[in-house]
């Protein structure tokens, strides 16, 4: 037993609406408003990190949805918000909010009743197994300080927005109408963000809702990269701030930015996810009917650590769970937007078998004996004749016998030269 004890440092004050990261106590995480996205990022978005959301599909606006969740969570947690958009007030009004509490109670009771019923039906040997889950839910109450349960059918009450505007919690930066040199416009926006960050005492969220849209002027790839890099530098200087930038759909593709554009974007921010929606693609919609799009994670935040804590902590990505298996890999991720909320979940191919079944090696559990019969000839000479008969008895029948894996017992003798004496 080691007599060294970890010196617990002076407990730093945890800012409101944040919590320390489980893997590195000096990092504070803040919620993005969507519990499954928090799980993918490793518990939440760390402070002084920037996140980039790409949604290249032109016919949907999922990046805006994620951005609104981020804003709403900022409202709820009492953080300062800086929004860069051409119509900031409209964006504030469109944020979602928590439902009225009695409705949430009813939903939760129904859910518990369902789960209780299901428990009775499952056989006893499976009781210790967890229910098959494709996503991570936050089972805290809706008034949880870290991450609130938002309901897409509710909007932010007007009085909360007004109150926040007056108290200075909400700051907005309008994009100027003039189409001057774009680099200067980007620089002036960065300066205005810096002013707000300097003055604020609470944790601040910087939100850029649609970078690259027409109100930004004719941005080139260099201007976008310049903004993201200087924003990241600014966030590092102000440790209680974080940022979420959403790119306009036309800007998020390689066709606009050149080959390797999406990769470059992943390098200049701390967290980058791409949501490839299926909205206008009938073939993908038919292939994955329960989801609305695929999620590709290009970068994960690793502040104060070398590796991203999401590798160990994320249940959705499933790296830790599969590390004991043969050559673990990440789960495929997808998202879907339901009437009341949006979730990110794992994507699995069909389990039905047949050509849809995903198997790289044959299953060890079954084996099939091949029997050739001299009297019957089917097909040409030399062709393998495979007949599988079900049922007991008779020559050339019952062939499928389960063969259990042989128990591998290995032991090494410490003194191998001892002979057993009978």
């Amino acid at each position, binding site marked *: 037993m080691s007599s060294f004890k970890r010196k617990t440092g002076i407990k730093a004050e945890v800012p409101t609406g944040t919590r320390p990261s489980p893997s590195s106590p000096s990092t504070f995480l803040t919620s993005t408003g969507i519990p499954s996205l928090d799980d993918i990022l490793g518990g939440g978005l760390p402070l002084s990190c920037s996140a980039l959301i790409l949604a290249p599909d032109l016919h949907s606006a999922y990046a805006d949805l994620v951005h609104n969740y981020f804003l709403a969570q900022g409202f709820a947690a009492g953080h300062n918000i800086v929004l860069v958009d051409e119509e900031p007030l409209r964006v504030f009004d469109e944020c979602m909010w928590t439902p009225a509490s009695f409705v949430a109670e009813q939903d939760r009771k129904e859910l518990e009743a369902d789960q209780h019923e299901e428990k009775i039906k499952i056989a006893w040997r499976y009781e210790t197994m967890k229910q098959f889950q494709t996503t991570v839910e936050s089972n805290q109450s809706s008034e949880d300080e870290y991450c609130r349960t938002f309901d897409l059918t509710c909007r932010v009450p007007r009085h909360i927005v007004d109150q926040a505007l007056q108290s200075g919690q909400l700051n907005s930066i309008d994009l100027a109408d003039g189409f001057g040199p774009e680099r200067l416009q980007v620089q002036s926006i960065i300066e205005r963000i810096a002013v707000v960050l300097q003055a604020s005492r609470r944790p601040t969220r910087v939100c850029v809702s649609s970078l690259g849209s027409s109100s930004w002027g004719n941005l080139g790839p260099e201007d976008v990269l310049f903004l993201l890099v200087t924003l990241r530098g600014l966030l590092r200087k102000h440790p209680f701030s974080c940022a979420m930038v959403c790119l306009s759909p036309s800007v998020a593709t390689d066709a606009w930015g050149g080959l390797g554009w999406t990769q470059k974007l992943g390098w200049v921010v701390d967290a980058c996810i791409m949501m490839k929606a299926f909205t*206008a693609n009938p073939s993908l919609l038919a292939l994955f009917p329960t989801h609305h799009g695929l999620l590709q994670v290009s970068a994960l935040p690793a502040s104060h650590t070398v590796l991203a804590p999401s590798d160990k902590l994320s249940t959705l990505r499933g790296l830790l769970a599969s590390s004991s298996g043969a050559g673990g890999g990440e789960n495929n991720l997808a998202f879907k937007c339901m009437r009341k909320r949006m979730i990110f979940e794992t994507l699995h191919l069909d389990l039905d078998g047949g050509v849809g079944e995903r198997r790289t090696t044959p299953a060890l559990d079954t084996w099939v004996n091949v029997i050739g019969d001299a009297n019957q000839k089917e097909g040409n000479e030399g062709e393998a004749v495979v007949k599988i008969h079900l049922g007991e008895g008779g020559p050339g029948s019952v062939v499928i016998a389960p063969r259990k894996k042989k128990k591998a017992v290995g032991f090494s003798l410490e003194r191998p030269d001892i002979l057993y004496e009978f």
Partner: protein
Amino acid sequence: MSDGLTIVQSSSSQSALPVVRELVNSLKNRILFFSFLYPSELFTAEQDNLTVFDWTDRIPGYSNEPLDLLENIPSGDKPTTVVIDSLETLLSDIGSVSATVTLLKKVRKRQNTNLILHVVQSHESKDLVAHLSQTSFSPSLVLHTAYPTSLLLHISANYMTPPPPLSPEPKFWSVFLPISERQHDIDAIVYGGEGSGSYVTEEFVVETIVRGGQNGSRKRRTVERNLRGWKSPNGFCELKDLAQLGGLWGSNKTSIEANTPTDPTTNLSFNLNLTPSQQAARAQVPLPYMHQGEDSSKVQGAIYYDPDSADDIDDDDPDEDLDI
């Protein structure tokens, strides 16, 4: 058709001007036609609800008249449709994509104003069309894109995927969508060695994307894609009514019925058949190694023993010092 924004896309291999003509002629409300490239007579005859602005000679740098679209659109209660016949010309006049999008956004925001835009796909206009197709520009959109019929014939011949009623829709779209985005491939099909050139404008194929959407449900926005044909005097029609694609419907039926694999013994110069007596003799020949598989399974004698938890497994053979 839509109450908002309609974009009609031509390409270098297929022009969609007849679609614009049809859309303009079918409108009943007031039409403001801004003609930047094509003479307006190409589209419509004089009507009393039509106002034509012939700006084909307003070229920035050569003429002093400004391109003031907004001032010429009276704001009022009458439902108005603004038709711009050549968006890429407007783009090159204004010079920047964002300024064009901002201008069109202001036009769109006018009450009771619908927009019909025609654009020829090119490298410069691709960005502009991407901006205009986003949901942030307009929640509802109807996007028509014209393709030559030889594209469908090419896909059906080379990818074995004829158009939708004949092949399942997801499969067809998964083949069609990537090739439709590669304009140079379509040009190669039409203008290349085996292509027929683009002399045919009476019949072509139109892919329509309809994005409906009232502002109420902003999540469940359905986007529909379908492929229809266009026949010159009549307008939209089914694909099977196009004469050029007739071959697909006729021959495909026979190919589905002829599903049997081709028999390689049909066209040989020597005889591979056996007479019945020869077949009987052949059936009676005992094959030499027929029992080999069975024997090995009987003689194998492997013991499958699952060790219990109470068994101790001793690898030593207790009989090893038996001397028989």
